[in-house]
């Protein structure tokens, strides 16, 4: 690769090492092949016969099934890149994708890390420091206590500052334990001791902090692209409110709730945040939006996201291709006016988990699979007949995406595609999504981050 002399023109890589597995490894390899770039897959013992290994030009074994000994092993991945002569690494999502030290190690070995700089990843990943930077810039964040709350009196003071309702959260961990909502001071005093005891029992740490409680919040995120020359665009929003225990399950683009004015505000705010972090490549800014369309910044996702296909479907932009072009030193070649949102896209994450058994993981062998297809259907998956779903990795089997001219048709199309999709041998979330697609509230777009609790209780 050459960079510098002819700024931002048609520079590319010869060979990219894909430091990931499963559907995202396959996704990256597909774009590389379309771009005429050679690929190297890396694999653990569990993934020897996987589709990414078959589809890549070369494959390197990097260790046993356990992630920390293979896909999280920086030395093994760097050694594989050096040995195969890869000039760049794409880490997908998860694993090493948001590791500042891995990005730095790539750089130190003369390999381009396809993503933001090591420094940007570190700054964006330090949540409390990032929060202070953004508060100074006047970007709204969820109001809350600056530090942990030690006494009920301190909790009342903090609540008076941010305004009721408030939520107490355990400093030691998440998952709903040690969490209590209080709508007035009397509630808060009662909630404090219960939440503190629960947090102590669950995490061995009774410390709490306090935040303003956002009623019926929606999780809405903005996809941005930025090059090394200070050019930025946003690709609109994704609606990610359909979650279970903070795991997104269904995403759509655009959001039913976001109008042109809110989109413009969120988009320009996302780009301001990106500039503040000297962010380049693809990234996502996550926001919580309340029922009155007030929005609060949550965090930066410094990687390509699982749900990126819904944005690709409504913009016609291949986000992975843009990541590669930007990393190779090309100019973005897009202005905000070039970004046109067309139609409606939706994604269901097909997971190996059992909705009838509290979403318990269901690894095991897929005895047979029938894939959906037809108009407006995109399926990103690495599974096949006789595929062994390993208990060592997360439960994502694939992403079923649909596109249609408008939302109701997209919902109908998703239901049709789910009806065609058949996986036997293990439990999956397919049937659960069929119920969601026929639910009145979902069809009317009346969703928030608590929606699935309502679905599960039906």
């Amino acid at each position, binding site marked *: 690769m050459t960079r510098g002399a002819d700024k931002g023109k048609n520079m590319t890589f010869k060979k990219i090492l894909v430091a990931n597995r499963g559907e995202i490894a396959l996704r990256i390899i597909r774009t590389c092949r379309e771009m005429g770039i050679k690929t190297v897959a890396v694999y653990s013992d569990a993934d020897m016969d996987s589709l990414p290994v078959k589809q890549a030009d070369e494959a390197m074994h990097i260790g046993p099934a356990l992630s920390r000994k293979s896909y999280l092993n920086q030395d093994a991945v760097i050694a594989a890149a050096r040995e195969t002569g890869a000039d760049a690494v794409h880490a997908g999502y998860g694993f090493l994708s948001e590791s500042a030290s891995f990005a730095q190690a790539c750089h130190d070995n003369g390999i381009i890390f396809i993503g933001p700089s090591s420094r940007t990843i570190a700054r964006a990943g330090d949540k409390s420091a990032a929060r202070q930077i953004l508060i100074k810039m006047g970007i709204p964040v969820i109001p809350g206590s600056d530090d942990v709350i030690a006494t009920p009196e301190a909790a009342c003071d903090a609540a008076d500052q941010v305004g009721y309702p408030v939520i107490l959260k355990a400093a030691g961990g998440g998952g709903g334990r040690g969490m209590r909502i209080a709508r007035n001071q009397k509630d808060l005093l009662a909630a404090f001791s219960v939440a503190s005891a629960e947090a102590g029992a669950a995490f061995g740490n009774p410390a709490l902090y306090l935040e303003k409680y956002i009623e019926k919040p929606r999780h809405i995120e903005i996809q941005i692209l930025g090059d090394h020359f200070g050019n930025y665009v946003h690709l609109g929003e994704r609606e990610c409110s359909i979650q279970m225990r903070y795991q997104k399950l269904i995403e759509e683009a655009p959001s039913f709730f976001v109008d042109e004015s809110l989109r413009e505000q969120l988009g320009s705010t996302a780009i301001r945040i990106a500039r503040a972090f000297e962010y380049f490549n693809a990234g996502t800014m996550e926001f919580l939006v309340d029922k009155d369309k007030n929005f609060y910044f949550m965090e930066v996702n410094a990687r390509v996201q699982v749900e990126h296909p819904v944005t690709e479907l409504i913009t016609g932009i291949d986000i992975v291709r843009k990541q590669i072009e930007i990393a190779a030193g090309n100019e973005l070649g897009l202005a905000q006016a070039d970004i046109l949102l067309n139609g409606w896209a939706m994604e269901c994450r097909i997971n190996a*988990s059992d909705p009838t058994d509290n979403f318990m*993981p269901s*690894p*095991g062998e897929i005895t047979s699979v029938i894939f959906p297809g037809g108009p407006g259907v995109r399926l990103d998956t690495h599974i096949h007949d006789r595929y062994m779903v390993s*208990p060592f*990795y997360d439960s994502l089997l694939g992403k079923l995406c649909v596109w249609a001219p408008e939302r109701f048709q997209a919902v109908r199309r998703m239901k049709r595609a789910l009806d065609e999709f058949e996986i036997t041998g293990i439990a999956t979330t397919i049937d659960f999504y069929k119920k969601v697609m026929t639910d009145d509230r979902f069809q009317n777009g009346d969703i928030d981050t608590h929606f699935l609790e309502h679905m599960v209780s039906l």
Partner: protein
Amino acid sequence: MDNTIHTVTSPVMGTFYRSSTPDAPPLVEIGQSVTPEDIVCMIESMKIFTEIRCGKAGVVKKILVENEEPVMKNQALMEIEMK
């Protein structure tokens, strides 16, 4: 005589852990008295940890799996001698 033995099994294919965090001591030892609600081990599957409760009151008689060993769904993990 086997009806005095209660077998704790794994609800899911995954990895068996005797303690709740890597640094913590084992949740139970052989010879220890346990109640039905006691957490006796953990199973990690697909990055999710499941606490395994004993199910019956008694004394831990055998631990059938080594720490960090892979286990299958319904595999026997421990034998509890019921009171």
